[in-house]
């Protein structure tokens, strides 16, 4: 059977609706940028820092500095990363509920949205 090269068919629209509905639901139930919380830095899946205090926190693994996490009020950003493309730095500042990921260094910086406050906990 010869097929016509239709750009759209009904099932295409159905998939598009499912995708956008799922994303809309995610944004409805996920809060960004408001309230307060603490930052949680993990390397290779292990939490190495948890704090709600402002400051510059270098992330060092086996004596090698990977990057610095800067917490400034209700914002957090990454500076001086050793990764080649610096995507984590380009992600800029994120607020509570946000996340910065550095895949080459396997570092995840999460701004956990909560009313609790954590002074400083390092591992």
């Amino acid at each position, binding site marked *: 059977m010869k097929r016509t090269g239709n750009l759209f*068919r009904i099932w*295409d629209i159905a*998939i598009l609706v499912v995708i956008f509905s799922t*994303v809309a639901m995610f944004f409805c139930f996920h809060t960004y940028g408001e309230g307060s919380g603490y930052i949680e830095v993990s390397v*290779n899946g292990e939490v190495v820092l948890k704090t709600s205090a402002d400051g510059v926190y270098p992330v060092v693994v086996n004596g090698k500095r990977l990057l610095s996490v800067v917490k400034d009020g209700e914002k957090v950003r990454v500076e001086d990363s050793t990764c080649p493309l610096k995507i984590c730095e380009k992600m800029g500042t994120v607020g509570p509920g946000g*996340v910065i990921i550095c*895949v080459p260094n396997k570092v995840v910086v*999460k701004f956990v949205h909560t009313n609790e406050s954590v002074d400083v906990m390092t591992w």
Partner: protein
Amino acid sequence: MVNHSVRVMRTALLGAIGTAVYLIETLIPFPLPFGRWGLSNFTVLAAAIAFGTREAVSVALVKSLLGSIFTGTFLGPVFFMSFFGNLTAAFAQGVAWKLRIFGIFGVSLIGSVVNNMVQVTAGRLILGSSAIFALLPYMLVLGSFGAFANALIVKRVWSHASSSGIIFSTSSKNVENDSSRFQSSESQDRGR
């Protein structure tokens, strides 16, 4: 059956075009610091529609390997994310087209969704943290625009191929017809 060298030639051509677009599209601004529009995936989509799942996966393989070598990410964590994402997306697009219920856009969209989901799953395994799933909604929305652009390109290629008298093969029957035409022109040449 299609000649093996024809398959190799098609894969090499589409893989080379895909790699070139992959490199050029790094110059196109993207709203997020991570990810890209994925315009090079139109070659995989075209292969899935015109030649089938096997060639789509082959094109994705060539494109991923060459693209990562040229961008300097080969065998790094980012490479594994995009490599597995591209390969599974190519497979998914081939299968989706065979189902005969999706249009070109639908097949492209399925490829985009599968690519993004496999990438974040691979990222989850590499990073050991599920925080990467927070990026998935952005990737899905922006990926839909990329999928639409890819579908438009392939539709244009299809229209152009049809108007030029080339069968944009969509079934094994057409591939066989292509092959027999190829053989008959060869025998005509020999006859001259």
